[in-house]
């Protein structure tokens, strides 16, 4: 347990430091948001129906940004071999890394999500719901993303490959998350969608540790 706590602190420190992990992700997120009115036109009546969906699209894309470094850095300098030899099982190491990724990237993104959505015309009263769904959804992104990052270990084209592998798997959370906002905008009950989003994250939490650990063991050979 102690080994895991130390590892988790290390991961968090690495994710926060060096080039400002959360700041960079939020900057990317807001840049994407700013490009939307510039490409589709700034009329409020055109933007408001898009606001929730665009925020979720930007969230999903921004969540894939730093995945490349999640395992690759430790894999290259041999730290991953040491971690695998350590007391903590590799399955829990994957979870610790995904959790650190979520805290360093997902949570800051979740709190900038309502800013982006409201700037695009989402009713301000929906800000708490936006933060909540983005928090749950970004945890799912971090878990599924960690699996993609583990699978791409040792490949020559990390970033783009991870995006191609991971983005199709991001479809359910994107559908449920933006669906919750769309329902709330229409005045319908958003909670069924939030519940489905939560169910997906639980599902990802079951699959990722085992599949991710298998992928790492395979890459280490």
């Amino acid at each position, binding site marked *: 347990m102690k080994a895991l706590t130390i590892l988790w602190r290390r991961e968090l420190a690495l994710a926060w430091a060096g080039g400002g992990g959360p700041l960079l992700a939020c900057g990317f997120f807001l840049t994407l948001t700013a490009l939307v009115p510039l490409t589709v036109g700034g009329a409020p009546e055109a933007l408001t129906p898009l606001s929730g969906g665009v925020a979720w699209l930007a969230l999903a894309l921004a969540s894939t940004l730093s995945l490349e470094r999640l395992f690759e850095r430790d894999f290259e300098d041999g730290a991953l071999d040491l971690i695998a030899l350590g007391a903590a099982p590799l399955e829990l190491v994957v979870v610790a890394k995904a959790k650190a990724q979520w805290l360093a990237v997902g949570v800051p993104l979740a709190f900038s999500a309502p800013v982006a959505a409201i700037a695009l015309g989402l009713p301000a009263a929906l800000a708490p719901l936006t933060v909540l769904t983005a928090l749950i959804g970004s945890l799912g992104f971090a878990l599924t993303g960690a699996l993609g990052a583990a699978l791409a270990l040792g490949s020559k084209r990390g970033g783009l490959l991870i995006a191609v*592998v991971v983005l199709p798997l991001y479809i359910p959370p994107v559908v449920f998350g933006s669906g919750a906002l769309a329902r709330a905008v229409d005045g319908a009950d958003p909670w069924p969608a939030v519940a489905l989003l939560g169910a997906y994250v639980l599902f990802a939490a079951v699959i990722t540790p085992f599949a991710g650990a298998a992928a790492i063991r395979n890459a280490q050979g």
Partner: protein
Amino acid sequence: MFGLANPQKFMAFTRPLQPVLWLLAVGLLAVGTWLSFAAPADYQQGDTVRIMFVHAPAATMGLGAYAALGVASLFALIWRHPLADAAARAAALPGAAFTALALITGSLWGQPMWGTWWVWDARLTSVLVLFLFYLGYMALRASIDDEQKAGRAAAVLALVGLINLPIVKFSVDWWNTLHQPASLLRAGGSSLDPAYLWPLLTMMAAYGMLFGAIWVTAIRTEVTRRRVLSLRARAAMEA
């Protein structure tokens, strides 16, 4: 079935099977094509209804090939059979090709029938996602140099994809009912007249045989390729 996991037995077993599969595929394709053109034109859709005989079997085989890919990957991961890995690798490209064919013919069918090349209907979107799954599998497999590691990583991805496919399908259906698009597909169109059912069933069988023939040929090629590689490696060691 497990006896076939031995590459030598597999090669001996499929040597006569391969031409039979190809003959069946070509024969059924010929008969199916003839039946497709012999079928009467639909009173509403006219001659474009014939696209169905190319389109529907392609979609079925696209999905079927992914199931084959997933099962082969499971065998490759659990029993570490090189042959199962070869089977998974061999299923990916034909499966992607069938899925792409379903998307293209569907688009060509949609233009005269619905007046548009593409609609974000739940079925179309699901098939597009299936194609993306194939793409991810092939991209991952191609980007890792060590073939054994590439095969194992791709197998994990194929299995994760197989488990995720129903969830993606469910979420897309849920999304579709949320958006309530203009219903372009005729309701109750599924009760097919026998005049169309027989050509369709023949084409389904033909596509099944075609996939089987391509698959077996590709596995045989892969086994031979690996033999050549190991022979070359041995020759280099001795030299």
